[in-house]
């Protein structure tokens, strides 16, 4: 089983962001690192300066680097930026079908924001150059199995750790909450480094907002499920970055995948981490995503 560190979905400060990848490069036993802005193009300029060094450092450490692209490109500038990224040397991860069009058949990774719900869709995307497909978070194991059974050129990847992204919107919820417009947002999302909790009126932890994205409050953690998923044909798991110790989390997953620890020991490591929400795994069991089964 290969391990992928997914893109940082939150608006971390540049130093924090660069430090995170420096640690991942030196210490995390992972195979692939996907980086780049997925949620909001207004965050991108801050990254552009730092990204060259970060990529070089990761590659020196032997990581396979993939550049992520926006989940909801709408502006001409945003679409042009995807084109530029796609024209570079690195494999890119597409998160909107517009990017698939721009790639014109070049090899790429399909991110979890693209709707791949069945084997026929997988076939179409493989035909267009998909080499890895990270499936949408709501798929049950049964569907994952049926899709993976039909794979030929694409690896199948599943989110194993982190808050699942649940929706994207033309509206920025961080800006809305602060009575700001999206265009004059003052980058208020940088205050919530794991997303901002959305609780029900009865105090139940429910969702989290992150710019234009709505995420689960619960943190997906797949442990004992990995055996079944590997057997079904899943060959990559994705760990989505949070402010907890992602080196410790990825090391525990590496140990689990290599048989050095069992799922209970993995859970013990993860439970020690300061997670932003309760541990959930309902989706893969065909249940509500918010439950632990």
């Amino acid at each position, binding site marked *: 089983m290969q391990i992928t560190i997914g893109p940082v979905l939150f608006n971390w400060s540049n130093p924090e962001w660069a430090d995170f990848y420096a640690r991942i490069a030196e210490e995390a036993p992972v195979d692939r690192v996907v980086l780049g802005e997925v949620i909001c193009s207004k965050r991108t300029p801050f990254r552009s300066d730092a990204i060259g060094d970060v990529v070089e450092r990761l590659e020196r450490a032997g990581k396979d680097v993939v550049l992520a692209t926006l989940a*909801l*490109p*709408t502006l001409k500038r945003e*679409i042009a930026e995807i084109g530029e990224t796609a024209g570079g040397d690195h494999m890119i991860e597409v998160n*909107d*079908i*517009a*990017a698939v*069009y*721009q790639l014109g058949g070049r090899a790429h990774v399909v991110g979890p*924001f693209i*709707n791949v*719900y*069945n*084997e*026929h*869709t*997988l076939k*179409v*995307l493989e035909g267009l150059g998909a080499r890895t497909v990270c499936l*949408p*978070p*709501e*798929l049950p194991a*049964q*569907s*994952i*199995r*049926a*899709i993976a059974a039909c794979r030929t050129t694409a690896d199948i990847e599943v989110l194993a750790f982190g808050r*699942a992204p*649940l*929706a*994207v*919107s*033309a*509206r920025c*919820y961080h800006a*809305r*909450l602060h009575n700001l417009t999206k265009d004059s947002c003052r980058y208020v999302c940088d205050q919530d480094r794991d997303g*901002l*909790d*959305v*609780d*029900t*009126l*009865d105090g*139940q932890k*429910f*969702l989290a*907002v992150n710019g234009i994205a*709505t995420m*689960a409050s619960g943190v997906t953690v797949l442990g004992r499920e990995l055996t079944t998923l590997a057997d079904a044909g899943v060959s990559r798991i994705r760990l989505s970055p949070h402010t907890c110790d992602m080196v410790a989390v990825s090391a525990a997953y590496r140990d689990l995948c290599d048989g050095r620890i069992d799922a209970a020991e993995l859970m013990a490591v993860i439970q020690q981490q300061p997670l932003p929400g309760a541990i959930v795994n*309902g*989706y893969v069991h*065909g*249940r*509500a*995503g*918010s439950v632990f089964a």
Partner: protein
Amino acid sequence: MTSRTIYGTQKTMELICPAGTPSALRAAVEAGSDAVYCGFRNETNARNFPGLNFDDEELREGVAYAHSRAAKVLVALNTFARAGNFGIWQRAAEQAVSAGADALIVADLGLIDWARKAFPEQRIHLSVQAAAATVPAIRFYVEHFGVRRVVLPRVLTVDEIAAIAADGACEIEVFAFGGLCVMAEGRCLLSSYATGESPNMNGVCSPAAHVAYAQEGTDLAARLNGFTIDRYPDGQPAAYPTLCKGRFSCGGKTMHVFEEPTSLNTIEILPALQRAGVSALKIEGRQRGKAYPDSDGARLPRGVGCFAFGAANAIAGAVSIYRR
């Protein structure tokens, strides 16, 4: 084509009304809709609500009725086919084609590809559930799969719509009236996070089977699978607990975090939509009563004043009773 003239100009926009049931289809056709859209009574349809929709025989009768009055029937097969069960979606497409559907409204890439090969002559429209909102996304579906029309997301501005239409890749259909989805359609998993059932997989959002209302002191609590979506003090109108329309606590505030429970209404911008090159206007609401296309949708082509009356009523009503 029996498209109508709006605002006395020469350009025409097709008016498409929702038909949740056979009687709603007849009402919409009688009221003068150019086309109606409907779906099967199963998970192939993104309005898979209890007691709604068509079986094979009802669709055949509905198409025959509509065609006898020069109206079109567009069949929505706009959920994402479940892996390992693709046959359910294939059969629905076959039944729709065989019933004489004027177009299939499809969102799933795999299903579009299959339908394109199985029925090369069949007109395919890209459902709003595919959330194609940019020129390259639309060109993708047109160039690879011969899609003839795209239904645009509800959140776009007139300028954005005009820019997309100006590319001329295919016909453009927009929502003219009805519920507003603030999340990118087809890319929202909130419902399955709370209940296990989602628009993409099951054709339902915030499904009624998971809804519970409880009178608690002086409040009516509206819950979805145990999650409190809103509380209404006595004397205040309640609403259906649609997830994204709820009130929540966030960052020290209690508010409609995602969306106010209001509706989309394009009356003011109909001429602009027309100038933008829009081919068709769609009225949302297959889940609404049959009085809906009759009282509101049909007012659209009959005259601005009359439509404005219906729409204003609807907007006022929607604040308290909005649901989707």
